[in-house]
Structures are given as structure tokens and as C-alpha cells.
């Protein structure tokens, strides 16, 4: 099984760059977008097989992005990652799963945990 092309979306540029490098080192073709709007544009330009997205970002947040990608490309696997704990008594990662994410991870997570999640898809 060939490794899927990954689109990584996070407004924390440092985090996105580090994770991108780590994923590349693991053999994944990985691109980075810093917000939901750019990510959607990037995906339309060249569809990714796996989307790893943060939930809270300016200019189209993760929920909107997940919904849009799901609508356009039902086959794309999606992993939602967020630093949010329960916020206003809501479990946003749970919401993300409901919105269509295949897996969720709470920041901070180890690269191994992310890889395990990807392989588990």
C-alpha cells in the first residue's frame, strides 16, 4: 500500500512545519496550508488522500473545512487535531468526529501516535 499524500492544515506555522518535516521523514508526501481557505484551494488544485487539520483557525475553521472536503471528496481520510479541552462543556474533538473526521487527536501528541492513527484508518 503506497503512502497517502497528506495535506496538513494548522495556523501555528511552527507546528505545521515541524510536523510536515516529520511526516516527510516518515515517507509521506506532505503539504502545508495555514488556514482552512488555503487548504481547500490547495486540495482543489491537487487533491490529497489524507487531511490532517486543526479545528480553530482564522478564515474557515476546521469544521467548515471538514464539511467542505467531505462534500467534495468523500474518500479523503480526515484526522482532526486540536489543543482544545472541553470548551464551554463541549467536546470539540467529538464534534469534529461527528462532522466527519475519521480520527481525532488532542494536542500535544507524539508523532508515533499520529502515525498509528494514520495506519489505523
Amino acid at each position: 500500500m503506497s503512502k497517502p499524500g497528506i495535506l496538513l492544515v494548522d495556523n501555528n506555522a511552527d507546528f505545521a512545519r515541524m510536523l510536515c518535516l516529520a511526516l516527510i521523514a516518515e515517507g509521506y508526501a506532505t503539504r502545508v496550508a495555514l488556514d482552512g481557505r488555503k487548504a481547500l484551494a490547495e486540495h482543489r488544485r491537487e487533491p490529497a488522500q489524507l487531511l490532517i487539520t486543526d479545528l480553530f483557525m482564522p478564515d474557515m475553521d476546521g469544521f467548515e473545512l471538514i464539511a467542505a472536503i467531505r462534500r467534495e471528496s468523500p474518500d479523503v481520510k480526515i484526522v482532526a487535531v486540536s489543543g482544545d479541552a472541553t470548551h464551554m462543556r463541549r467536546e470539540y474533538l467529538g464534534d469534529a468526529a461527528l462532522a466527519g473526521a475519521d480520527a481525532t487527536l488532542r494536542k500535544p501528541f507524539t508523532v508515533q501516535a499520529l502515525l498509528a492513527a494514520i495506519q489505523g484508518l
Partner: protein
Amino acid sequence: MFGRRGMKLKSSLFALTLVVLLPMVVFSSIVVALLIQHDQNVYRQGANDRVRALMSAVDSELEIDLTTLQALSAVLRKLDPSTWSGTLQEVLASQPEWIALNARRADGSLAAFAHRLPGAGPAVVSMEEGFARAMREGLPVFGPIGQGPSGYRYAVRLPVVESGEVSHVITALVDPARMLRLLRRQAIAAGTVGVVLDGENRFVARTIDPEKWLGQPASESLRAALARASEGWFSGRTVEGLEVYTPYLRSPETGWAVAMGLPASSVEAAGWKYVLLLGAGLAAAIVFALLLARLYGRRISQPLLAVAEAADDLAAGRRPAALPESAIDEVASVARGLAVAAQAVEDRGDAVAREQATLREADRAKDVFLASLSHELRNPLAAITTASHLLKTGGADAETRLQAQEVIDRQATLMTRLVEDLLETSRVAAGKTSLSLQTVDLSEVARDVYVTWRSGGRFDDHPVEFSSAPAWVKADPARMEQILSNLLDNALKFTPPGKPVRIRVWQEAGHAFVRVADGGKGVPAELLASLFEPFVQGATKRGGLGLGLALVKQLVALHGGTVACSSPGPDHGATFLITLPAVEAVQPALWPARSAAESRRLRVLVVEDNEDARRMLSAKLDLEGHHVSEAADGPGAVAVATAVRPDAAIIDIGLPGFDGYELARRLRAASAPGRIRLIALTGHGQPEDRERALAAGFDAHLVKPATADQVGRALAG
């Protein structure tokens, strides 16, 4: 006045009224008793007067008869006794109430007589006693009543005295009807028995049943009374057995008596009238008191009961019903007091509710804060975790490892700042912050912040305008930087890329002002009030702890200033204005005047491969009015220099492509002598480094980090 043992108010009022009535009753009774007595006295007096009048009327009737007889005797004395009978007949004819008339000699034989009845013989009327008395005493004799052939009559006798001896006795026999008529002429009330008695206490006339009792002896009680005294008042029975009060009088002249039997019932009725009146008045007073007690009791007790009920409601936590108006001031004031208390309870309830709402809001803000804190810490932690992963895996190249280290540095710094902000807010809130106050020009502080941020690339997405005039304040410069940074951070966070942010510092009318205006989505009106409270955040997806503005407010307050926010509406941005007390400017001499180079506009080329450092320097130079162009490596620098022909170049030594020495040589070679000023900016500060730089063609050699002042002087030459 209110019973201690549950006595009804109505009963209390009634009892009160009775207590007031009691002395009145006693005094009224005394007055009534006196009145009755007085009335009876008056009545008795009246009766006595009437009895006296009756007596004198009876007496004068008898006297009239006597006077007629005296006149007759004077006539007879002049006449011959043989003609007397004719004279007597004439006189009798003139006296219609006389029945018979005679004259007797001293021996009792008839000298003459006249009789009203035709053919009647000389009357024989109880001659013996009356005649004998007239003869014996030589005085007129009245009565007694006796029965003759034509019925009852009484005699009036006049002895005729001649030469000291009684020669004759003239006697008139009078019909007692005369006395009855007289009696009837008197105004004697119906039911009252008026009687006329002769000297032997026999009835001569009587207003009731005169015929039956004529000549009969008077009642026992009257006779006994007459025996006791010739005048008086007694209570007894009439001959018929009627209960009467009787005033009576016996005439000393004629020996006759009169009496009036007043029925006891009518005498006592006068008293009873008062007693009845008093009783009726008293009863009316009591009924009135009862009614009043009931009415007033209700007027007092109903509002009181309502008040008591309202108080119960209040105690039970219910909202009391509206209280009735009371006409009684005290009750009304109790009701008012209760109404005020009810209002106070309600207000307090509202205040408690508001307080609870505030607490809930604070609790919510705390929840949001904790969630935000988690988010704000987890994000840099995620970056650090991933960077450390990259460092651990052996496969990473040097470039990747360097980036990872920088990321760890940066994100750790971010976290540190976050934690420091948190601690700072807590310290300032707890009043544990100390300021190191200096007299500073706020515009200079703001300029430094602006330059630092601009060089740090923070303004890449927004056109940021900066304008300033000196504004001197007594302030802690580090805190002022913090304040400005927070305001700028806030402005950038809420302003969409491309929209401007404007910073202005100035002084006016004793105040220093800093204004940061953004073109963002503005602050909703409902948020304006709580904007400066800790943990309060506008809707944003950029995160943050909601501490920035709270810290601004606290720090500005520590400096004796104020911060205000205004927002004209959604998407029209927000303006934050800080006002601080201005102070006297520090002597201008202490601050070096700007050098000629600083005031001169130069075209400056900055060559530096470290982006942060290059931007920082460019921003500083730009702010001083120079035209700045940038290059990141040797070949790029040569290209830019060819294009812009700079007046000066500030060059890092360690550059990709070829190094700073080589670049200096090439730039120097490409320009007219003295045309370009070359300044080396390097981390190496050894004397041999300096010599090497000067040898390569540099005009000045500066060691990192160089101050703005050093750069300025180097540019000026």
C-alpha cells in the same frame, strides 16, 4: 389598647367606650334623680297652688252667700217682722242656687221663711248643731251638708246681733251643685279627683261620681290627714280605692276643706319620663359605641390583618399583595413601612439575582479561560513535541535540526510570555507590582515598539501607520511597552489582513494620549462594558487568554491613567485611547539632537541573511526616513545596489554566496570613490576583525547588537 391575651380589637374598643360611658351614666343618673325630685316638687307645688286657689274660690262662694245674708239682715232690721217673709221671698228669688231662706228667733222659733218649692213647709235642716253654734258663738256658720226633703244642701248661717245679744239667725240653704260647678270650673286634669268637704269632712262636691258620694264622709286617709294638719300632702286611696297623691287644705275661715287626688301613676310618670329618656339615651350610646367599635375595629383591624398577611407572605418569600389604604396614619405608616420592606426584599432579591448572574458570568469566563489556557499551552507544546521528535530521529539534516531548535525556542518563549502574562495579571490585580518610574517620552517608547514589531514581521499582513509628537509622562518604560504591545496585538488580532491599523501618540492640555485604531470587526456594544475584565474575549478563532486588555487597564490605572474603547459599529473597527497625566519635558540638552545624517534621507541597502535581524534594521532605518532596500546574500546585494545605487550599505559579514568582505570590495569597485558608505555589522568584534573589515573597504565596523545610535553615527560618518 390592644389586648395582651388575644382580645379582639373590636371588644377592646367596645370596652374602652363603656369605660368612658360609665361615669357619664352615673352622673346622668344623679342628674335624672335630681330632675325627678325637682319635677315632683314643681308638680307638688303646682298641685298645692291649685288646691289653694280652689280653697279660696270655695271660701269666696261661701263669703258671697254670707255677704248677701248680711245685706239681708240690715234690711230686715229696718222692717217690721210681719213683712219679713215677703222680703225673704224676694231675696230667694234673686238667688237661684239657694233652695230656702229663713230667719229664726233666739228660741229657735221661725220668724219668717221662704221656699223655692211651691207648697213646701219650712225646711228642717240639721238645725240643732249649726243653729246652736251660731247662737253660742255669735259668728257665721258654714255647713254642714245634710239631707232635706228636696235632696242634699248645705246651710250658711248669720247670727244677727242686737244690743250684744243674738236676736235672730238667718239661714240660707244652698244647693251643693253650686260647689260642683265651681269645682268643674277649676282646670282639674282628667283622672284627678277634686273634692270639696264641709267642716265635718263630708263631700259637698266631687269631680267623680258627685251624686253617689254627696254627703258621704271622705276617705279614711283624707280624714286622718285632715285630723293631723289643716294643710298637707299625703299618699293614700280615694273612696273608690284609687291610689293617689293628695294635696289638701282646710280653710281657717269657713272650716271647709278641699283636696285633689292625683293618680300616683301620673305623678310618677314625670320621673319615669326622665328615666326612660336616660335609659333610651344610654341604650343609644351603647349601640352607637358598639357600632363605632365594630366600624373602627374593622377600619383598623382590616388593614392590620392585611399588613400581617403581607408580612407572612414576605416571611414565606412570596411577593405580598398590594396593601389597602388606611385612613389611620399609624396603620398607614405601618403599611408603608411594610411596602418599603417588601420593596427592599425584592430589590435585595434582584441584587442577589444580579450577583448570581455576575458570579455565573465570572464562572463561565473562568471556564472559557481554562479552556483557552489549555488551548494556548497545548498548541506550542504540540510544536515543541514535534520539533523534539525531529531532533531525536537521526535522519534529520542540519537544516531541519536548526529549524527544530528555533521552533522549540520560539514556542517556549511564547509559552513563557503566556505564563508571565498570567502571573503579571495576577500580580497587578493583587497590587504586588512595583513600577520603576522615569520621565519618558511616550512617543519614543511607542516608536521602539513599532520598530521592533515591524522588524519582527508582525505588520506583514497589515499596513500600520505610525505618527507621533513628544508626549512626556512619568512612567515605567517596560510597562508602557507592554501596554502598547497588548493594544497592538489586540488590534492585529481583530483586523483582517490588508486593513490598516493606526498608532498615534500626542500631548494635549496636560495629558498624554496614545491611540490605537484598527479596521477590524469592531466591539459589540454589549462587550464594551466588560472588555477590560480578565478572561473576557471577543469572538475570535485566533485564541489568546483574554488577559491582554485586562492587563492594559490595570497597568494604565497604576500609572494614574485611563483606557477607553469606542467602536462605531460592526466592521467599522475599534479605537483604544489611553490617557495619562503629562509631565514637564526633560531638558532637551540631555537628549542628543538628531545628527545631520539622521535628518538626511539616504538610500540605504541592508544586507543580512538573518531575516529577523534584517527586518529589524530596515524598520529602524525606514522610520528615520531613509529609503531602505534589502538583500539576503552577496549576489542579491550586488543586484540591488546596481538597481538603487544606495548612499550607504550595512553589510553582514557571514553571507551565503560570497561573504561581506567580498561584497564590500565589489560594491566599492562598482561605485565612484566616496560615493557609497560601507558599514560592516558583524558578530565578531576582535581588533583583527575590525582591521580586516577596514582593509576590505568598509568605512565603519559595528559589532552586533549595534544600537540605533551607533548605526546613526556610522551612517553619518
